[in-house]
């Protein structure tokens, strides 16, 4: 079709966690600008499969920017050249005919490669398990409108809650810090009245787990905020720090 592009892909291929891995070059011919980036990879994969070559593995599921599964480092940027979108929302119209596109997995010690472009993000799971909740059981809770919450606060909590746990912040950070992710999770609950009883204990537990997982320190570079597909703000990191330090003073009441 006219308007279609011919591209060259340099893709990170790695058989498994133990393999060293390397870049492999592929031709992506006749790519429509209307395709999404992942559809372009589908097309390349279909051609590989027809030639009985192992397709390029990558994580993806919803393909609408909400599940947080997709995680490609494209031309040196998490989720590619555009801001405020995920890889699955990126379309080929953002590239031009003849372009060479480099595709790598998230690179971080705490996110080991599983295969090709898919990485293991279970560290994020363990951080959330350590304290990312309000301890209420099912049933026996007050009527929803018994807890009025200012719209401003509620909207702010919502903004933090839109984090999709994709890990772009870690991939963007030169220290591979997970501070933006962890602080968004802490902030959402710290902002709301329901989150107050466990506020400081939560901050401590989640930060402790983050450190244990081998993420780097935050040095306020701000690359995470720029690359975050959901535009999670650095303010969250300040909140996390404040709550984490406050936790030391609240030790007696809050932490057992």
């Amino acid at each position, binding site marked *: 079709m006219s308007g279609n592009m011919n591209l060259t892909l340099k893709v990170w291929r790695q*058989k498994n966690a133990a393999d060293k891995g390397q870049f492999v070059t592929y031709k992506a011919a006749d790519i*429509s600008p209307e*395709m*999404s980036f*992942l*559809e372009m990879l*589908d*097309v390349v994969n*279909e051609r590989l*499969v*027809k030639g009985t*070559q*192992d397709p390029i*593995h990558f994580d993806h*599921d*919803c*393909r*609408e920017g*909400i*599940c*947080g*599964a997709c995680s490609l480092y494209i031309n040196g940027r998490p989720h590619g050249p555009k801001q405020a*979108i995920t890889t699955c*929302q990126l*379309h080929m*119209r953002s590239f031009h005919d003849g372009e060479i596109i480099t595709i790598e997995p998230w690179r971080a010690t705490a996110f080991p490669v*599983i*295969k090709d472009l898919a990485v293991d*993000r279970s560290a*994020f*799971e363990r951080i*959330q*398990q*350590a304290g*990312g*909740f*309000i*301890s*209420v*059981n*099912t*049933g026996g*809770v*007050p009527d*929803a*409108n018994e807890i*009025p*919450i200012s*719209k401003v606060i*509620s*909207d702010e*909590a*919502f903004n933090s*809650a*839109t984090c*999709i*746990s994709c890990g772009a912040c870690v991939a963007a950070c030169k220290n591979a810090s997970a501070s933006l992710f962890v602080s968004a999770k802490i902030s*959402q*609950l710290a902002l709301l009245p*329901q989150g107050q009883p466990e506020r400081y204990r939560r901050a401590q537990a989640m930060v402790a787990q983050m450190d244990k997982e081998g993420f780097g320190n935050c040095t306020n570079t701000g690359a995470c905020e720029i690359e975050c597909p959901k535009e999670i703000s650095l303010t969250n990191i300040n909140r996390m720090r404040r709550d984490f330090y406050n936790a030391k003073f609240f030790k007696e009441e809050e932490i057992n």
Partner: protein
Amino acid sequence: MVLDSKTPQGPLAEKWNKYKFDLKLVNPSNKRKFTVIVVGTGLAGASAAASLAELGYNVKAFCYQDSPRRAHSIAAQGGINAAKNYQNDGDSVYRLFYDTIKGGDYRSRESNVHRLAEESVNIIDQCVAQGVPFAREYGGLLDNRSFGGAQVSRTFYARGQTGQQLLLGAYSALNRQINLDKVEMYNRHEMLDLVMVDGKAQGIVTRDLISGEIESFAGHAVLLCTGGYGNVFYLSTNAMGCNATAIWRAHKKGAFFANPCYTQIHPTCIPVTGDYQSKLTLMSESLRNDGRVWVPKTKELAEQVRKGQVKPGDIKEDDRDYFLERKYPSFGNLVPRDVASRNAKEACDDGKGVGTTGKAVYLDFADAIHRLGKDAVQAKYGNLFDMYYQITDENPYEMPMRIYPAVHYTMGGLWVDYNLMTTVPGLYALGECNFSDHGANRLGASALMQGLADGYFVIPYTLGDYLAGIGPKPVDTSHPAFAQTKKDITDRINKFLAMKGTKTLDEYHRDLGLIMWEYCGMARNEAGLLKAKGLIQALKVDFWKNAIVLGENEEMNMSLEKAGRVADFIELGELMVDDALNRKESCGGHFREESQTEEGEAKRDDENFAYVAAWKFKGENTPSELHKEDLIFENVKLTQRSYK
């Protein structure tokens, strides 16, 4: 076998409370002696797993993604219904019950639907207590919006990301139980079969999607919460990984499959652009609150629009056909999904479609922007508009959206009784993968409600009754049934890996999708369905001869994962066609062209079809056996649905 729905006796509004009281309880100190397997951790599974663990049961939970938070519930946009009547606009449990029964075109069980409406109010309380940031008014109280098929405002929402926020709530409850060691969570594990011991469900066999290890797990009961099977159509609003394998395998082990042909085609999705298309994106139904659906009045004008000679904004009011407002003055753009979809298809079939393919209608916000201001529209729908812009490169603040119907939801699923138990003792189905509650058509914002009602407020009661009955005798995987099932699965995998044909799995999946969309989609007729049946059978034979499956079992292998899913979709597709053939009436999402009113609306046949069609698997390449559960309506009067 006679299907026993176990519907409790007594007046509708009292059934559930009385039933809960009559159910057997498990002694608190015995609860930890039971293990419950929960497959799927979307809204239904995560809420069930967390609630059961809180009660003291040991839970093993499974999902195929790398995190429970990525289940496709995360993608639900519009909202969740609840009969809170916070708006004082006349809502009540009975009205929500009535709307849901009517919306489902009188093909669901009264007792289940009423229970759902009753529990709806508790869900909102639960979510708020967990910290779910629902939209609020300036006064600090919760905000509501209205949704298709209802004339009251009862939908709670969190901008356009309601599913995400609800799932994060359920996920946090799940995480808390994982932290307390009451739930063992197995991510990237795909259930490939059910294990039966002495006629009861007692475990599952899974494949570790990283290492390929085939493992088995034992439990006193198995809960399937694996979501919908809309991906039978290849293109749908479901996620790429959504599949029918868990329920299909369970079906082949004895669980009846109910109403497989009831699929919901959602009217407002972004249209297809090319054959590389991998999925379709929904534009939430909530948009129909403020957006107006129209096409050019004449074919000639539509033709000019398609060629780009005329811009939609330049078409005069008189030259537009707001066909939903015209045909259904009292519901207008808010008619239920099946009605909106069929009308869009009709307009396009009539040559009035827009977009380069002619398979699209407009959803226009110009009036709303004029009336409310751009900021107000942005506050309500900003993220949906952004999503549309990302995909189409067109700005919906400036020109109308182009939309077209797409497969979205499956009302059919495993048959369950009032306890949510399938026809296999000890096997339960929750959420979208069961058939209950939505009849032949689901109303907007009611799937999230159903998933969470099932998981938070129904299963914790009904499961206890079963477990109390079987007693806390330990179960483990030493029974030969486990080794046998593992062997069957290993053999099947080896068979896949030996397939070195010429056609890719996606090609088969796409072919299946096209057959289903063409003959078992928005409109169906006998000749088409018979043709589809033949085509699917031929596709199946070809699949097992000519498909290419690459790689090995002992690695992450997307080719192998797909092979199993596509093989199951093909078989399920055939059953859907059988079911559509059997149901000669039109109802809800199932439109049989042979059964329509003079005005072209769906015509039900209550005389002959007021039943649930539950299919029993009888063996490979053998026709399934139809069992009927008659639907008895004691409270609502069956009328031909009218939204005029």
